[in-house]
């Protein structure tokens, strides 16, 4: 099938043999954006988290056909080294990553949370951010999430990307 969607603000079309191919592999292996990671293939760890219409989605278990016509954002489209997203800036400021493998997923989950709830409480963070980090960088992550919340531009928050 032919699949068309917007990836990191670029209209994109790919040819798929199997429309049920998880979105993760379309992004990683066909479109060659490697920032979104494979962790478990069962939506259990969150390493593959990206945004679909501004919402966090675990792409390893999300059939590609459902993104037809939609907006997909990956870590590569969240911000750039020159112009980082507040979440990325906070991650740099707090020196969060260790091995780094799961970090894209955490940043995407955090950015999606802050879109909906710009000033989450610790409890709301606990409920929303359920990814797995084996290096257990959670202590700095919590600090970075609060910092990102403070860095987020306040006027545009809830309706972006919907």
């Amino acid at each position, binding site marked *: 099938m032919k699949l068309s969607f917007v990836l990191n603000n670029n209209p994109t079309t790919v040819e798929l043999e199997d429309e049920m191919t998880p979105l993760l592999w379309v992004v990683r292996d066909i479109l060659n954006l490697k*920032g979104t990671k494979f962790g*478990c293939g069962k939506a259990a760890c969150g390493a593959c988290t990206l945004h679909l219409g501004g919402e966090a989605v675990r792409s390893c278990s999300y059939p590609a056909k459902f993104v037809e016509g939609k907006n997909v954002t990956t*870590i590569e489209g969240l911000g750039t080294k020159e112009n980082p997203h507040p979440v*990325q800036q906070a991650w740099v400021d707090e020196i969060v*990553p260790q091995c780094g493998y*799961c970090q894209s997923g955490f940043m995407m989950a955090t950015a999606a949370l802050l879109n909906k709830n710009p000033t989450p409480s610790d409890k709301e963070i*606990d409920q929303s951010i359920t990814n797995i980090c084996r*290096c257990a960088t959670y202590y700095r992550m919590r600090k970075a999430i609060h910092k990102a919340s403070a860095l987020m531009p306040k006027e545009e928050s809830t309706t972006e990307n919907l």
Partner: protein
Amino acid sequence: MAKKKISRRKFLVRGGLGTVGVVAVGTYLFRNPIRRKILEQVDGGESPYLGAGMEPMLWFEITSNNKVILHSPKVEMGQGTFTGLAQMAADELEIHMEQISVVHAVSLTGNMDNFATGGSNSISGLWLPLRELAATMREMLKTEASKKLGWVNEDMKVEGGVISVGDKKMTFAEIANGVTDWEIPETPNLKEFKDYRFIGKPLPRVDLEAKVFGDPIFGMDAEMPDMLYGAVVRPDKIGAVFKSADISKAESMPGVIKIIQEDDFVGVVATSFTAAEKAKEAIEVNWEVGQSWQTNDIREMTKVGKGDAFLLQKEGSELGEEDGIISREYTSPIGAHAQLEPNGVLAFVEDSKATLKISTQVVALTRKEVAKRLDINEDDVNVIPTFLGGGFGRRLHTPHAVQAAVMSKAVGKPVKYFFSRKEEFQHDLFRPPTHHQLKAKLDNSGNIEYLQHDFSSGDVAINSAMLPGFISTVVGTDVGAIRGGFCHYGSIPNLRTVSWHVDLPFATSWWRSLGLLANTFAWESFMDELAIKAGKNPIDFRLAHIQDDDKGKRLKAVIIAAAKKANYQDKAFNGRAMGFAASTDAGTPCAQVAEVSIENDEIKVHKVTCAMDPGIAVNPDQVRAQCEGAIIMGMSASLFEKMEVINGELTPTIYGPYQMAQLKHAPKEIDVVLLQGIERPGAVGEPPLGPIGAAIANAVFRLTNKRCANLPLSLT
């Protein structure tokens, strides 16, 4: 001071894109170990850098834009080694941090650690060699500058990669340009510690941007043109032996290029990961399955008294059958590594040469195994290490590189192959289960008169492909399982520790901190129990049993520092209690206080205070990061993690059912105090994993009056 000269094999000068000078030096040979020495090293954390023998090693490249590339023989798996190495090299080279980058040395450079990256020794092992190499290179550049410009050594100033005399300046790149025959000087004096600008500073990680912006730096991200995807069929059952396979269904599935049948495995090569996985599932394998193992079988096998015993420590006499003996048994379960990046590799075999891009902790071993299987020279195998999506010991054997190489050879194209998460869990090289028997007797004044610890474990070092087989034979016990097994309360008059080793029906191996987690849990829970029996404060009780030598002084210092910083309270307060524990691992003492409550029948850790003495902290921020991560990883293992064996299968095989700490479980406060009791860097990555389990359990005792003696801790 007697000077040694860096032994030279030869220099390589490699022309490459933007590369003007390359320095390669052969040095730091393997020290022949003897039994006593190994045991001392295991206990003391002395780990010399084990270079690759007589091959020349590529360390530095100077690029035409006057930057230096450091080729690291150690891999970066999150522990921050690249950053520490960059700081060490930049300081002696006299360049700025922005001028140095660190890459993984590929095996063709010869700069491989002949063993591994692991054991918390990357920084400590390279502390002297790397600074000497960097200082030597700086002097070599000065020598070339004097040859080119007639400058006199004493007049030259080196700063920011520029050598100057008065107003005249020349960059490293300009000096190195065209040099083909470098002169190696006597090893220069290293700078005084106070003169270091980067060492000892909490600088940001050198790999920070790559990891925040999603750069393709991991093994799983590797690509080559015309790349195909592989999968290998693995059994669900422990001990299953491959007999035969029916591949007829799989062969004709979409995307399948070839099914590869070898004596020891069946693999699929296909055009995508999902096609390879589907075809793999469609292969019907006839496995010969033996005993249908259960968790309880494994537990029974691992009991003290079964298997081989080794007397690790003995002072004074042993306990007999007298009255007043206090005893308790402790256990820890099978643990999974559960690192986020599955094991995998990209292999390309062409014209009797192999290239492998791989997340591995064992570059040399991987090269050797691939060369052997393909029957080619090791020099014709280039292992290109990538950043690791977690190591934790899981990648101390990566034989899937061999399977990928075989599959690539069969199809003549690059093959990328990685484990599914189920395979990762079922075929982990697990943390072995343990069983501990502790016995003690107090004297009339409440001091420990006798203390005995027998502990039993499956393989850690024994049967490890990474270690030369003779090490376990020579030593007589498992050098990994005994980590944390030595008693560090040296003033107890009668002391005995015995390690027992059992052969389990599945592979167990290195898991971050090895025996430390379980052994410390047992020692330190028991010390707490004894302190309470003696009616003493657990801090004072510990201090009273530590000998007064250098090692003892450092242990006492972290115990005092942790208790003070946490304002340790021995009684529960407002529904919370504090628990205390300490350990010494690989020469690094560490003490922790956990502040705990019980909420909805669950153990909740609010705050952990950690005092550690790793010697010189090359990058104090990364030492803190290692403490924070190790504490939560140790907490995860202590509160949640366990693998079961049900009807011959290791289970669970997915995150969630294999419960691990998440953000919601992490303590809101982690307070790290760093002491410096020695004038060199010591071990960092593993030691802070030691105390946390017992610290939590000891706090739980103060809340519930119940001694939790089995990991993961359970209130029921």
